[in-house]
C-alpha cells in the first residue's frame, strides 16, 4: 500500500494505452496548429509586401503588374458587415422568440428544426440555392446585371444573404444558451415590478445575454470570413470590386467583387492565377483576421461568468 493509488504505472494496460493516446492526440493537435501558424507566418513573411495590401488586383498576365489585394480585403470586410447586419438581429429575434415565447410548441419545434437544417447545409448548397433564388427576374434589382438586363444573381447582397444563413445558427445557439442561463426568478422579479414581458426582454434579458450574443456573432463572423464556396458562386469571378450601377453605395452592394478566400483560391496553384506567393500572403492575412475574431470570441465569452445564484 506504499505506492500512491493514482500512479499511472499501477493502471491496467488498457487504461495506460488510452491515457498516452489522449496525451498524444492533444500534443499532435498542438503540433498541427503550430505547424499551420508557423508555415503560414513564414510564407507570409517571405512574400510580405506592403504594396499588396493597398493595391487593387489587375488583370495583367505578368504577376509583377497584376496588383495586390486591396479589393479582396475590402470585400471581406464588407461581406462581414453586411452578413452580420442580417444575421445578428434575425438570430437574436429567433432565439428570444424560442426561449421566451415558444408557443405554439409545434411551431417552436419547426423553427428549431429549420435552424438545424440551415446549420447542417453545406455552404456550396446554400450558394447554389442563393444563385437560383437571386436569378429570379423580379429580384434583379438586388444583383449585378449584365448588358441587356440579364439577371446573373450575383452581388454582395446575394452573397451576404447566404453568408448570413451560415452565421445565423451560431447566433441563435449562443443567444438561446445565454437566455436559458438566466434564472426564472430574474424574469419574475421584473414582472413583479410591474413590467411587461416585452420590457423585461428589452431591459433585463437582452442586456444580460449580451456576452452570449457577442460570442455567437463573432463565431459566425469567423465562419463568414473563411467561407469560399458562396463567394465563388455568388460574388462573381471578378477580383476587382465592380459597382453594380451608378457608383452609389447601393450600387456597391449590388455589385460584385472578391474576398480574401476567393483571392487565395484564384491565385493558388489550384486556381487560374498561378501566383502562389500572393496566395500565401493573402492566406496569412486571412488567418490573422480569423484569429482576431476567435480572440474576440474568447474575450467576450469571459464575460459570461455566473451572474446569479440559482
Amino acid at each position, binding site marked *: 500500500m506504499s505506492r500512491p493509488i493514482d500512479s499511472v504505472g499501477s493502471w491496467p494496460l488498457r487504461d495506460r494505452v488510452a491515457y498516452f493516446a489522449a496525451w498524444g492526440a492533444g500534443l499532435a493537435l498542438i503540433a498541427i496548429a503550430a505547424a499551420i501558424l508557423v508555415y503560414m507566418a513564414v510564407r507570409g513573411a517571405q512574400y510580405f509586401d506592403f504594396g499588396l495590401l493597398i493595391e487593387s488586383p489587375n488583370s495583367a498576365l505578368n504577376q509583377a503588374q497584376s496588383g495586390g489585394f486591396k479589393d479582396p480585403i475590402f470585400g471581406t470586410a464588407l461581406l462581414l458587415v453586411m452578413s452580420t447586419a442580417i444575421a445578428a438581429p434575425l438570430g437574436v429575434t429567433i432565439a428570444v422568440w424560442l426561449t421566451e415565447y415558444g408557443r405554439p410548441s409545434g411551431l417552436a419545434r419547426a423553427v428549431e428544426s429549420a435552424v438545424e437544417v440551415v446549420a447542417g447545409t453545406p455552404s456550396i448548397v446554400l450558394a447554389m440555392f442563393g444563385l437560383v433564388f437571386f436569378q429570379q427576374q423580379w429580384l434583379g434589382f438586388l444583383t449585378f446585371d449584365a448588358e441587356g438586363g440579364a439577371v446573373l444573381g450575383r452581388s454582395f447582397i446575394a452573397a451576404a444573404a447566404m453568408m448570413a444563413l451560415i452565421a445565423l445558427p451560431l447566433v441563435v445557439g449562443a443567444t438561446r444558451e445565454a437566455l436559458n442561463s438566466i434564472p426564472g*426568478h430574474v424574469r419574475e*422579479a421584473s*414582472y*413583479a*415590478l*410591474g413590467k411587461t414581458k416585452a*420590457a423585461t426582454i428589452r431591459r*433585463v434579458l437582452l442586456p444580460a445575454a449580451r456576452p452570449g450574443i457577442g460570442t455567437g456573432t463573432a463565431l459566425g463572423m469567423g465562419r463568414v470570413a473563411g467561407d469560399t464556396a458562396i463567394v465563388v458562386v455568388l460574388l462573381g469571378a471578378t477580383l476587382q470590386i465592380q459597382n453594380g450601377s451608378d457608383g452609389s453605395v447601393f450600387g456597391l452592394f449590388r455589385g460584385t467583387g472578391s474576398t480574401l478566400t476567393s483571392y487565395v483560391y484564384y491565385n493558388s496553384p489550384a486556381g487560374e492565377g498561378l501566383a502562389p506567393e500572393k496566395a500565401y500572403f493573402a492566406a496569412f492575412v486571412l488567418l490573422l483576421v480569423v484569429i482576431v475574431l476567435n480572440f474576440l470570441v474568447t474575450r467576450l465569452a469571459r464575460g459570461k461568468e455566473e*451572474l446569479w445564484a440559482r
Partner: protein
Amino acid sequence: MGAMSPPDPSPQPTFTTAEGGQSRLRAPQLPPPVRRIVVDAEPTVVQPPPGNGHVPQAGAGLAAPVRRAKPSSAPKLERMRIEGVSIAYGEKLAVDSVSLPVRQGEVLALIGPSGCGKTTLLRSLNRLVEITPTAVRSGTISLDGEDIDRMEVTALRRRVSMVFQQPNPFPMSVFDNVAYALREQGSGRPGKDALMSHVGDALVRAGLWDEVGATLDHPALRLSGGQQQRLCIARALAARPEVLLLDEPCSALDPRSTQVIEELILRLREEVAVVIVTHNMQQALRIADHVGFMYLGELVEYGPAEQVFGSPREQRTRDYVGGAFG
C-alpha cells in the same frame, strides 16, 4: 475551574512543569502536561483571540429565548383582503379556500412545511401565479377594496411589490436597478436627475444608502449577498407600493445579513403592509405580528404570533411549531 484550586488552603508544595512554567515559547521535549497545577497561583485569564468581529452574546445558544420585536405603534390599516382563495396547478390543489387580512403596520408571516402552498398564496397577491400556465384561482383578493382581477396587472404589481428568495439584482448599475420600476416603458423615459430623489429615498428606506450612496453607478452584481437583497428591497420600494411581499428573503443569506434585513422589515411595516413567507420559525417569532400556519394548502391557524407559537389551538400547529422554542 474548581478542579484547579484544591480546597486545601495551607501553603504546600508547588507543582510546576519542568520549565517552571516560565517559558511558553520553548518547545517541550516531552508531551506537554495536560494541566499545570499551581497552588495559590493567580488565576489564568485566557484572552479572546484577536478580533474577528465575532462577539459571543450572553445567552446565545440553542436554548436561547427568541427575542420578540415590539409591536408597531402605527395604526393598523387593512390593505388587502383574501377571501375564499383556492389555487390549483392542473389537478393539484395548492391553496384551499384561504381567507386572510393583510394589514399595514404589522408583519404577516406565512409559515408551514415545504409544499404547503404558502408561496403560491403569496404569489397570488400580485397575480404572479398567473405566469404558470396551469394555475387556476378562485375566490377574491382585494387591494384597498378594489378587486385585483379588475386591475391592470402591471399597475397592481407596482402597488404590491415582491422580493424573492435569491437576491436577483439586474445586471446593471445600482442606480438603474432601483430606478427600474420607476421608468415607464417606451419613449419619454425620465432622466437620471428626475429619478434621483426617488432612488435615494428608496435606498435610504432599505438601509443601503450609507453603503452604496457614493457608488450608484457601480454594477449591482458586485455587491455582497446581503446588500444585493437589500437592493432588491429598495428596488421593490421605489415605486412606493402599499404592500411588500417577501418570499423567504433571508434563506440565502448569512445570519448577520439576516438580522439586518429583519430590522429593516420591522421598520418598513410602519409604512407598508408586509407579508413574509418563511421556513424559519424563529424568524417568524422574531418579527411577525400575525402568523398564518398553512398545511397541505389549508390555512390551519391564523392569529397573533404569541398565540400561534405560545398556545396554538390546533394539534397540527402545535406539532409544527413545537421546534420553535428549541
